[in-house]
């Protein structure tokens, strides 16, 4: 368990904001200092960004995993769930943002699914419990995702924004939770910034083997 001090420390900005004109690299790490991939940084903007919503986004299933693990989708985007495996999958979501179910299918489902509501949609496969995927549905914002090294490159921080969100599927506070952080954290003069997300650390599995040890 992490105490409050540690949690507070996680929010301390390590590097001051750089010139907005320069591109900034944000490193996302967990409390152990490990780089976190698939972290999402969302910066609300005032003016809408135009994008083509008619082309469905792809949430593939490869090798009993969703690919990508986290898919960023603008509100009202269409997402197609092709099945690249030679086995069937049963993709579903019970998330409030979008609840749906694609019953056992192979190859490509008949039609893509439209995500009308912003929020986080957790995807699962009824057949393969280990398969977890996320669709981060956002509404007209700058939304960026960290790469395998946990890095996010920001060209320009929108000047209108006062705060931003930081999300990670394994965040301690739950999959629905987003950290709201002051925008100043991103306006550092330094080229590289580090943000920490506290993730769930897997708890050790206790058994009766230990129970019997106690008894002796």
């Amino acid at each position, binding site marked *: 368990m992490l105490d409050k001090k540690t949690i507070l420390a996680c929010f301390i900005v390590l590097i001051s904001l750089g010139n907005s004109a320069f591109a900034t690299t944000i490193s996302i790490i967990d409390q152990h200092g490990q780089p976190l991939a698939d972290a999402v940084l969302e910066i609300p903007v005032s003016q809408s960004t135009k994008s083509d919503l008619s082309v469905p986004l792809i949430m593939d299933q490869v090798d009993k995993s969703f690919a990508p693990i986290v898919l960023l989708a603008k509100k009202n985007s269409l997402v197609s769930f092709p099945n690249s495996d030679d086995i069937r999958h049963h993709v579903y979501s*019970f998330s409030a943002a979008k609840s749906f179910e694609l019953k056992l299918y192979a190859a490509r489902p008949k039609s893509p699914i439209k995500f009308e509501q912003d929020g986080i949609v957790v995807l*699962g496969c009824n057949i393969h419990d280990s398969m*977890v995927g996320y669709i981060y549905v956002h509404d007209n914002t700058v939304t960026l995702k960290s790469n395998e090294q946990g890095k996010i490159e920001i060209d320009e921080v929108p000047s209108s924004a006062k705060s931003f969100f930081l999300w990670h599927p394994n965040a301690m506070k*739950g999959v629905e939770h987003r950290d709201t952080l002051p925008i100043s954290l991103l306006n550092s003069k330094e080229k590289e910034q580090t943000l920490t997300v506290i993730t769930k650390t897997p708890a050790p*599995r*206790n*058994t*009766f083997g230990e129970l019997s040890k106690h008894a002796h």
Partner: protein
Amino acid sequence: MLTRLSIRSQVAWLSALLIIITAITLTTSYAFRTAQLTEKQIERQMRYAQNVLTQYLSSQEQLLVTATRVLTADFGFKQAIATRDNNTIESVLLNHGERINADLMMMVDLQGELISISAKEKVTNKQVTEKISKLLENANLSQFLVINKRIYQLIVLPVKAPREIGYAIVGFQLSKASLLNLKNLTSLDITLVVNEQNIVSSIDELELENERNDLSVAPITTLDLLISKTNYFNKKISFDENAGIYALLSTSLKEVHEEFNQLISSILFIALLIILISMFLSRLLSKGISTPLNYLMKLTARISRGELKIAKNEQQLPREFNELYYAFSTMGEAISHREKEIKFQAEHDHLTGLYNRQMLLNIIGERISAKADLLLASINIKSLNQLNDTLGPENVDAILRTLAERLQTYIAGHHESINIGAAGRVDSDEFVLVLSISDLHKIEPELINLHDRLTQPYWVDDIKMNLELNIGSVNSIMHGKTPELLLRRVIMAMRAAAKEKKAIRQYVDGEDEAYLQKIQMIEELRVAIHSEDSPLFLNYQPKLNLSNNKIEKAEALIRWINKAGNFVNPEHFVGLAEKSGLIVSLTHWVIKNVAIQMEKWNEIGLNIRVSVNLSAQDIQHPEFVDYLLSTIEKYNVSPNQLTLELTERDLAENEEIVVQRLSHLQTLGFQISVDDYGIGQSSLSKLKSLPVDELKIDKCFILSLEACPKDQDIVSSTISLGHKLNMQVVAEGVENKESLALLASYGCEYAQGYYISRPVDADAFVEWYNNYEPNY
């Protein structure tokens, strides 16, 4: 103490004690061994049971995990939860619960709020809600939950869709049935305890109630297992220390106790049985000992009664007792033999084998009672002491034995005395022969015959010896009817024969009476000497100094008037006193009374030197000198005032001591005078060496001095002899003036006699002295 008990009870006690000790030792060691084994067995059982319990709980957990996984993986369930379709959730829980036979199922959201609950036993929401958060902390783990006195093993698993959307809780109640199952596996009772309260147990409720206190886990030692009253041995296995949940493994000790009790009672029974058997055997054994002991005791009782002839043992006895019996019979024989020996020695003379005096008296008594007329002859061997000196005691003994043999032969050859004759030795040189006689006339030839036989020569080695014998005789016809009398008289006759130098002499009537009279007189004299108011008294006869016609000396003379009032002749009773040893006491009496008298005379100024007659026995007596000195000192009499008179015969006896003592007394101042000089065995050589101050010429020379010229010659020459030897001379028995004149002319110093004065008592002497006028 033990030895006071009879052999039987000793054996019984001993064997009972041994058996009890054995039983106790065996029981104790067996009990320890059993306790150790039981303890090990219990330990093994406990370990096994613990393993089984762990295994059981583990498999339960596995079952729970599996069942819960199945539940949480159910898509419909997930959907129902995701959509919060509570009715559906409830129905799924119910349905699934039935499927896996779970006792408790709950659905909780991520925040720990209870969504739905399904339980076999009624559980209210309130009972669970507060415990949920704690349960969630240990998700994925098997946990224990106590609700309403029921204990559940449960598991909390998240419901993932695919991320966690809530928690499913599935639990099995640890019911009595499941504990009984475990009991079947482990053969141990299991009780689940929460906060020291028994929740559920495989032990019967009722029994549990009774044994409540027994379910403690106090350590029990090996011995406690057997002795303690507790019925259970318990071991605690903690499930959840924080919640105070643990299982108590209990093994019933009832069986162990019962087995142990059974063991003890069977050992007790066997011990008792063996004790009974041993008592019976000890009775047999003691009978085997006490019966022969009683038999032997009777035997010793017979021996003590004097039945010394012991018949050969005819009873069957143990070997030791047989030996004892044999020892007793040998002892009896030995006693009997010794008794005979003692009896013989008691009745016979040791040297000759003849009867002794006592036995002889008995025999004479028997013969007289049988109305037999007896002749007693007593035989004395003359001067046996001299023979002893010349021949030696061994040879004399041989002669005495020969004489005894001849006596026996004589009896054997005496036709009339075959069964009546007896011979005895009554003193060292005196024998007595008892024969029967029929005719007084035959006595003399008989005695002559006897004398002839006995005086035949005796041979000592090759030396021929002739014995001179004196034979005295009495017979029961003339001389008495009692054995003592006859024996005394025959010996008296024999002594008379010896004195009269006769070979054979018969007792003369009256001799015995004279003898008895003497004895009586001695006895009376003894009494007289020691009585306060003595019938003895002293007379004093003055001695006249012829040179100055003065009375300077006197002789003290003892006088006695006996009970009958008769004056006893002093020569007679002094002689008897000398023979009987009374003379010492008599002289002491004289010295004491002379001293008393002289003290009185000294006080009135009468200065007379008194002479006292002493016998040889007096001067030889070890206390005489001390007595004499202490007595005169006591009465303030000086030795110069005393003259001690002894006869020549007395001086000759034991000369060395007599001379030594007299010399000593002379130096102290006593005068020593030789009495009765001239009639004894006068020896001039002795006279020369003796410490003598005075010669006293015997009166036989003086009584008729004036008429007998021979006496005149003897006296005059004796006086001049005395003077030559520096002695004064006293003449006694002066009865006339002429004799006195002659003595004065011879130069004799002192004269004593009737012409001067008879001996008179002290008072008369003083009177005479005061009136005395020298007129010679």
